[in-house]
């Protein structure tokens, strides 16, 4: 085969599987692939760079939502990811243009537009807000209802415990788990010392974890679902 031709870096199935698993490496790769096209399309129609970025993320979000349907395939009317995403970003652009929303320029695109993304909830106000993230139930085997229920219960427990946290600890959880900052970064943002962070960690995180481990929901997960426990233990956020 001619060395000038490279197969697409990901197959359609790999893209769908990556989106289903919430694999941000794949999502970023797709963004990299489509953004030059979206820019060319949007700018040639009077839009600008920021509008193009907004359109690209909205198209990616729509595709992500489609992928959450286990029956979704790219084999029906529109074959192939390229054709699908091209139609999607065109539709997004025309929808935005018709609705006159492309003046979103300096606004942040909030992912609360449809389906499961509507589940975003605020657990407190102001800087202590933690919004619900990726649905943890998706780590359960869809066909094993008891796994799904057990994981759902564990998830609910975690959110109840988060809700009970004092504002200082909730803030710490937000920065550590949701913003995924290191302790050094948290210390810098909060303008406090490393020892103060260590104190927050021992005051906030360890009691939380110990309360979790004492709960019947977590005990049930660990005792009754060893395979699921193993799967969650092995999930490495940076490599998947």
């Amino acid at each position, binding site marked *: 085969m001619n060395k000038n031709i490279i197969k697409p870096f990901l197959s359609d199935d790999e893209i769908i599987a990556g989106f289903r698993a919430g694999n941000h490496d794949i999502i970023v790769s797709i963004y990299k692939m489509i953004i030059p096209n979206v820019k060319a399309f949007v700018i040639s129609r009077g839009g600008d760079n920021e509008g193009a970025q907004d359109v690209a993320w909205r198209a990616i979000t729509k595709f992500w939502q489609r992928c959450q349907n286990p029956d979704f395939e790219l084999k029906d009317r529109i074959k192939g990811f390229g054709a699908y995403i091209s139609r999607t970003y065109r539709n997004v652009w025309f929808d935005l243009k018709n609705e006159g929303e492309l003046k979103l320029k300096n606004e942040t695109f909030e992912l609360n537009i449809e389906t499961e993304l509507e589940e975003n909830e605020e657990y407190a106000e102001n800087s202590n807000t933690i919004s619900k993230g990726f649905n943890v139930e998706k780590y359960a085997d869809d066909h094993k209802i008891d796994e799904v229920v057990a994981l759902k219960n564990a998830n609910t427990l975690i959110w109840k415990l*988060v809700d009970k946290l004092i504002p200082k600890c909730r803030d710490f959880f937000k920065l550590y788990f949701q913003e995924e900052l290191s302790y050094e970064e948290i210390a810098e943002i909060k303008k406090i010392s490393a020892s103060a962070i260590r104190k927050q960690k021992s005051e906030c995180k360890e009691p939380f974890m110990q309360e979790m481990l004492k709960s019947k929901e977590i005990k049930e997960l660990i005792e009754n679902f060893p395979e699921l*426990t193993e799967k*969650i233990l092995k999930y490495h956020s940076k490599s998947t």
Partner: protein
Amino acid sequence: MLSEQDLILIEKYARGELDASALSEFEHRLRNDLVLRQRTFAEKLVQLSLSPHPIVKSQRIVAALGDDLFADEDYGQADVQEKAQEYTLEELLDMFRPLAHIEAEVLHRSGVSLPPESLQNCVVLPENGINCLESKLYFAFNPTPNVPIIVSVMDNRENEMPLANILIPAGVESYQVALPRNLKPGKYYWKLRPDTDDRQLRRRYGVAVGSFFIGAELMPK
């Protein structure tokens, strides 16, 4: 009771920050130490429950990378800025000058009605006028052409680039075509035509033409 050192290891494991040997050692301990295993499980579960939505996380990565998103490619922003110093305004005007007769063909992609199976209608990507930030062009087709397709790329002086006459197999929905490395900034054109001796097929599919830029940031306004 776990030590402070163990708690740090758990956090590093959960965040994928252990190196290979530390990871292997930690995983060995996980299999044999129930307390460590349960506490690590709790950490992972909280991490997964509270972690940001994958699209929000991806947006953060893209925002944090900024111009470096394409830094590992041939045409990173830094390179473009460097290249800007290498050319005079006249040279840049010349490099980005469109070719009138080819531009007319390019316009057919969105204008003149052509048979649905014509290549010009089949090519949905790349968009015309993309700024090619990677050293490859991603082609997507809908419907998929049922003949092999020859790809050629030329600059705005109609000089063909060294990938001339490469073949996209019949029936594929998408393909990436590698461009020669270190193409000069400027305006370029790609051309697709069916690889067949059948005159009827050649007429049916016709030729598809599109344009792209290398280093569009350098294009004089």
